[in-house]
């Protein structure tokens, strides 16, 4: 409960900071009024149409990645697992790149995220087909790696064939991941899909706890592994697919956050699920704040900052836990 309190306070603090820190210096009281639609029209626009969707998306994306990362690590019983492992984010990125490259993305505001979502769904279908209904977790990982590699290759092909340097740089910037310049329409597109994913992932706790003892013991404890697996795939696809669709590829959250919080969750996969969800939200909100504070004029990308924060954090963690791992 102390963990829950601390994470909740951290996430709320980041959320509030994200709303009130930005390019335009707006006093908190004015900003708060603007958020609820009163005061200067310009400030209302800044708060409601720029900062609110950005903050909400950062929190939603972080929550999705943290939750899916914890679930994936719990299912595979491997601290190196991350949600991108099953190829959902790679495929969603491919969809987005194709939308950008073909010009479809410009046809209407949600064209890009919708294409990305369709591709994420197709990836899960393909993995289920490859791994079979009762396949082992190893087959699942291999199928995921194959799908990721193929999506990566096709993404490179799309870049290779891009009609002009502007299209290529647009694609590259999109792939770096960002929650800047998004509208509430993006929130409304992603929220229901992510919500379903969150629901599927958050109810995995019991099964993941039982899996601590191995697949055989878990099944003998009354857990249906095939249901668990389907629920995990569906949940990850929905949450991470939607996250990638609206924010591009944001790495490291799903890997690092569960890893950091595991000791505070006393190793329990079910506790780690919600702890990672909150931790992921706080971390992405913090990274997005850093994006705005470090180089406000240079349009730094969220995915880049996330990796720059994430990698040294991960190194530090490895350094600290190397004795336990050995």
């Amino acid at each position, binding site marked *: 409960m102390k963990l829950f309190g601390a994470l909740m306070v951290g996430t709320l603090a980041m959320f509030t900071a994200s709303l009130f820190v930005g390019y335009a210096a707006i006093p908190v009281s004015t900003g708060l009024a603007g958020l609820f639609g009163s005061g200067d029209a310009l400030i209302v626009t800044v708060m409601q149409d720029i900062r609110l969707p950005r903050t909400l998306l950062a929190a939603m994306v972080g929550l999705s990645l943290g939750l899916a990362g914890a679930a994936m690590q719990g299912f595979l*019983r491997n601290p190196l697992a991350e949600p991108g492992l099953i190829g959902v984010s790679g495929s969603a990125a491919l969809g987005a790149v194709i939308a950008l490259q073909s010009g479809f993305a410009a046809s209407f505001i949600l064209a890009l995220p919708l294409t990305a979502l369709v591709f994420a769904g197709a990836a899960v279908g393909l993995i289920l087909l490859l791994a079979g209904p009762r396949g082992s977790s190893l087959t699942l990982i291999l199928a995921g790696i194959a799908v990721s590699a193929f999506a990566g290759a096709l993404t490179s092909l799309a870049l290779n064939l891009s009609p002009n340097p502007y299209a290529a740089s647009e694609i590259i910037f999109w792939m770096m991941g960002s929650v800047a310049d998004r509208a509430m329409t993006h929130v409304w597109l992603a929220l229901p899909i992510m919500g379903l994913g969150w629901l599927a992932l958050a*109810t995995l*706790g*019991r099964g993941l*706890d*039982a*899996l*601590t*003892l*191995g697949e*055989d*013991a878990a*099944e*003998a*404890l*009354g*857990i*249906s592994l095939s249901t668990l697996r389907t629920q995990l795939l569906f949940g990850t696809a929905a949450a991470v697919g939607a996250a990638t669709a609206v924010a591009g590829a944001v790495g490291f959250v799903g890997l690092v956050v569960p890893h950091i919080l*595991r*000791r505070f969750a*006393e*190793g*329990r*996969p079910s506790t780690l699920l919600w702890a990672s969800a909150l931790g992921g939200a706080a971390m992405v909100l913090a990274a997005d704040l850093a994006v705005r504070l470090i180089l406000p004029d240079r349009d730094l990308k969220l995915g880049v900052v996330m990796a720059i924060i994430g990698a040294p954090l991960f190194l530090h963690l490895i350094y600290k836990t190397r004795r*336990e791992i050995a």
Partner: protein
Amino acid sequence: MTLLTLNKLTVRRGACPVVDAASLNITAGECVGLIGPNGAGKTSLLRGALGLLPYEGQSSLAEMPPKARAATAAWLPQKREIAWPMSVERVVALGRLPYLARGASLSDEDQKAVDAALDRMGLQSFRARIATQLSGGEQARVLIARTLAQDTPLLMADEPIAGLDPAAQIATLDVFKTLASEGRAVFTSLHDLSLAARYCTRLIVISAGRIAADGPTDDVLTKDMLADVFHLRADIVNTPSGALIEPLGVLS
């Protein structure tokens, strides 16, 4: 009371049956040892009986809905796994999972079962230790305590004493014997024939997937059986504390 009935249970790996039409009953109060050479089908028989492998024939356990099965039989797999750095108490408490509603915390009754299991395995002083940092043998005892916490009428274990020190082996089998005397049943595979002779009330011998013998320990453990099934030349010495099997050589 019959806790497990197998009727012509067959488990196939590919086309080849690794368990071939095995029929047996386990009733309350028994401590049944499953013995046989490596690859005879001990693990497949136990897993097939629990419905963890595709099978033909009938198994009363495998036909139960998962939740009812988890309340009837606890299963200790051969492969000892504790994936995450949890405390010993938490690992043992996982045995209560079938009785917990989603998201519910341990009730007093659950906590009592966990404490009793820790007591039985002599793990009270370990309860706050991180299970993954314990030695292999200690982890094995933690996992046995986990199955005890499940508090089922039937305990099925696959080589539970492999890798334990002699005292821990005897302590574990003592616990199994106590469980049987309390009216539960234990069905365990094991390799130590002398310990099997001393602690099991009944032995089932499996050889190349078929049940070669099934009966009271003294009737089953004969020189002929050891020669036929285990290809072992051995002396059987009757001592006041039970039969002692002294392997002398391998028959070709």
